[in-house]
C-alpha cells in the first residue's frame, strides 16, 4: 500500500501469484528422495465464494471444465469458516497433471476477476510411516509451507520443520512461521 492509498483509504485487494505452483513436481522428487514422502494424487484449492450470480455461474463452469477430462469428478465442499474447497484427484504418479488441474481453477477465478478471493491450495503427500503431509501454497505471499496435521487439532511441528529443510531449495518457503495457517479438516488432508 502506498502512502497516497493510505491517505485516501483505498486498500486494494491483493492479487494472487499463480505460477509458483508449477514448482511442486520438482519438490515432490526431493521429498521422495530425501524423506520417503510420496504424493497421494490429491490436491485442493481453497477460495472465498463471493455472493452473487457471477460467482455461482463461474463455480459451476470450473467444475464442468475439470470434469470434462473423464477422470474422477472434483468434489466441492465448504468448511466451517465459510471458505470453499475444490478437491481434485489424479494419478499419484502424474503430479504435474494434478498441478495443471489446480492451476485451471486459479486461472478461471482470476480471469473472471476473482483472483483476490484465492486463499491457498494444498497438495497431499504421505510419509513412509503413514503420516499425512500437505504442501500448502499461499497465493498472496507466493510462498509455500508444510502442514502436518495430527489428531485433535495438533500439528507435527518436527515433521514440518524437517520438510522445510528438505524442500527449501525447490520451493520459496514462507519465512514468517506465524503465517503457516492451520488447515484443520482440509479435504484430502485427513
Amino acid at each position: 500500500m502506498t502512502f497516497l492509498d493510505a491517505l485516501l483509504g483505498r486498500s486494494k485487494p491483493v492479487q494472487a501469484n499463480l505460477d509458483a505452483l508449477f514448482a511442486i513436481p520438482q519438490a515432490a522428487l526431493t521429498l521422495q528422495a530425501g524423506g520417503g514422502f510420496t504424493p497421494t494424487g490429491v490436491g485442493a484449492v481453497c477460495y472465498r465464494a463471493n455472493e452473487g450470480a457471477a460467482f455461482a455461474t463461474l463455480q459451476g463452469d470450473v467444475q464442468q471444465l475439470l470434469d470434462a477430462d473423464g477422470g474422477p469428478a472434483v468434489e466441492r465442499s465448504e468448511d466451517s469458516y465459510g471458505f470453499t474447497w475444490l478437491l481434485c484427484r489424479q494419478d499419484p504418479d502424474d503430479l504435474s497433471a494434478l498441478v495443471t488441474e489446480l492451476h485451471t481453477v486459479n486461472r478461471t477465478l482470476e480471469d473472471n476477476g476473482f483472483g483476490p478471493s484465492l486463499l491457498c491450495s494444498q497438495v497431499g503427500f504421505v510419509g513412509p510411516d503413514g503420516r499425512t503431509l500437505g504442501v500448502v501454497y499461499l497465493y498472496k505471499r507466493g510462498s509455500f509451507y508444510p502442514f502436518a496435521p495430527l489428531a485433535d487439532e495438533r500439528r507435527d511441528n518436527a515433521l514440518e520443520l524437517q520438510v522445510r529443510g528438505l524442500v527449501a531449495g525447490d520451493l520459496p518457503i514462507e519465512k514468517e512461521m506465524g503465517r503457516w495457517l492451520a488447515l484443520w479438516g482440509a479435504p484430502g488432508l485427513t
Partner: protein
Amino acid sequence: MAHTRFRSDPGLTARMGLVGFLLAVLYLGFGAYLVYASGSIALGAIIVVGLAFAQWYFSDKMALASMRANIVTPEQAPELHGMIDRLVALADMPKPRVAIADTDLPNAFAAGRSPDHAVVCVTTGILRRLDSDELEGVLSHELAHVANRDVAVMTVASALGLLAGFITRWGLYFGGGRSRDRNGAAAFLVIWLVSILVYAISFLLTRALSRYRELSADRGGAYLTGKPSALASALTKITGDMARIPTRDLRAAESMNAFFFAPAIRGASFSTLIATHPPIEKRLEQLAKVSAELGRPL
C-alpha cells in the same frame, strides 16, 4: 494485467482527498499564524503535538485499557483466531493481536499505531449476537481500518485541532492573565478567536473524514470477504440492538466512538454533520452497490 472487480470508489476518494486537503490548508495557516502572532504558543504546540503523538503511539494500550479488554490467545478463542488467520492470509497483512472486552455493548474496534502493532477487539456482546458470517464481516471491516492506517490518519488529522481546542478552552486563562499590557491582551484575544474558528472547522472536517474512512473500511471489508450482505446484516443487527441497550453503559464508552464499528450514542440532537460514523442507510446503500458489482458478469 489481470481483471479485477475490486475497485475503489472515485467519488469517495475525491471527497476524502478534498477534506484532507482542506485540513492541511487549515492547519498550515493556523500554524503559520501562531508562529507569527506569538512565540510562547510554540511551547503549547509542542506539548499538544507531543500528547497527540503519545495518543497515537499508545493507541492500542489506551483503547484496550479504556474498554477493559484482554488479549486472548488462540487457545482461549480458537474460532475467532481461526477466522482472523484466514482473513489476514487473504488480505496479505500481518496478523493483529486479538482482544475481547467483557461488555454487553455489541461492538468492535481496531487500534494500534501501525499494522504491525495493531489490535482488533470485539466485545462479548457482539460475539453473542452475530452469527459467524456476520462476525467475519465485522472483523474484515476492522482489518480494513488497520490496512488503511486509520488510527495514524485520524490522529494526524485531529492533532492541530486539539491545539486549537486547547487554546479555546484555556488560552484566555493563561495568555490573558499573563500579559499585563493592553496590546498583548488584545493580540491574545485575536489568537483566541482564531483558535475558536479553527477548532470549529477542524472538528467538522475531522468528523467528515472519519465518516469517509468508515465507508472505505466497509468497502474494503466487503471486498475481502466477498460477502457485503453479511456485513450489512451485522450492521442492521447491531444498530438495532444499540438503541435497546441501557444508556449508562453506552455513555461510558462514548470517548471510544471514533474507533468503533458502529457509534454507541443515540438521540435526535446527534446530527449527521458531527457524527463519527455515516448513517446506517448510507452504509447499507454502499454495501448493496458492492454486492451488485460482485454479482455482475465481467
